[in-house]
């Protein structure tokens, strides 16, 4: 396909495809951020752990995109969805596109995402769409491990040294404004909920807040108080970081369309 052509799903599947983007794009972009650390992790062991998490997420994303590509038809593939969509067509939450900055930010983003991702997959297992339910069932064990890994590091850094505490608190304070977008349902989310495919996101908010508060308290970190949260990513309105991330992620396919390893 030409790299300027837009990927437009068939109208009947459009809501489901958009709904799938809403789930899978966040994992893809977070994994892309994690993969920036491959070979640059703070220790060899942590480097491997973060790379493993990235690979788990890429694997999950492939399943979602393969399914979405099938719904779109027209010989589209998972690679088309990852490498030829434009910024506005990505429906990930803003949280995952924020730069890594330091290890506290890496862990902070991972923690805020994993805690939501776990609840989402738990509910998605009950989806009336059997493919989506199967992907959720397969993914939830990995995600349970990610959640434990990131929560554990939140506690280590928060309840660690003066320096690690300070950095972890800074990251949490800064990332907090992105921690509510998960629960804001898009038009596609609402449509899929009506059809028994989706999840009632707003109902998960309370449990999420209480789960993360428990970890942050144990980590001796303060829970920020905020009335206004950032959102927009799920509707395709991204931060200034997203374009740079995509230009790196999509470079090879944009430059040599259809290339294979």
């Amino acid at each position, binding site marked *: 396909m030409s790299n300027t052509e837009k990927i437009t799903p068939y109208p009947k599947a459009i809501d489901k495809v958009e709904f799938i983007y809403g789930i899978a794009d966040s994992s893809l972009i977070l994994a892309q951020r994690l993969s920036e650390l491959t070979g640059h992790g703070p*220790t*060899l*062991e*942590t480097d*491997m*752990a973060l790379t*493993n998490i990235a690979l788990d997420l890429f694997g999950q994303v492939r399943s979602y995109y393969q399914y979405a590509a099938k719904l779109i038809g027209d010989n589209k593939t998972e690679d088309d969805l990852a490498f030829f969509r434009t910024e506005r067509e990505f429906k990930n939450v803003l949280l995952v596109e924020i730069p890594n900055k330091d290890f506290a930010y890496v862990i902070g983003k991972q923690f805020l995402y994993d805690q939501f991702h776990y609840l989402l997959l738990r509910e998605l297992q009950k989806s009336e769409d059997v493919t989506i339910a199967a992907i959720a069932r397969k993914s939830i064990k990995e995600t349970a491990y990610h959640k434990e*890994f990131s929560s*554990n590091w939140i506690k*280590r850094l928060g309840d*660690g*040294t003066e*320096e*690690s505490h300070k950095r972890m608190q800074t990251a949490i304070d800064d990332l907090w404004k992105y921690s509510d977008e998960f629960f804001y349902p898009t038009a596609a989310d609402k449509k899929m909920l009506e059809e028994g495919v989706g999840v009632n996101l707003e109902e998960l908010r309370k449990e999420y807040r209480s789960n993360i508060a428990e970890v942050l308290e144990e980590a001796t970190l303060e829970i920020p108080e905020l009335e206004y949260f950032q959102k927009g990513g799920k509707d395709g309105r991204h931060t200034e970081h997203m374009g740079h991330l995509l230009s790196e992620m999509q470079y090879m396919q944009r430059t040599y369309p259809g290339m294979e390893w």
Partner: protein
Amino acid sequence: MSDNKKSNKNEWPLWEVFVRSKNGLEHRHFGSLHATDTEMALKNARDVYTRRMEGVSIWVVESKNIHASKPEKNAEFFEPAEDKIYRHPTFYELPDGVKNM
């Protein structure tokens, strides 16, 4: 952690990792890694050594707790067994069904 950034990595103790590759087999030494405590050592071992379904159980032990025999004492330690071939159970015929021996 100290203020000296360079020495931070060196402060993480070394651990030895033993993995049971499947139920019924013994834990075998797989390698070593750095971690600050037991929990991190187990997690790191999981991520470094069992990514490809290598195991069903992991043991970790801090390397400092392993005591080794001394190479210069090899003569008295091991050589006396050399001429005692009758201690090997090689005089028995194993039934075909017995594996992992």
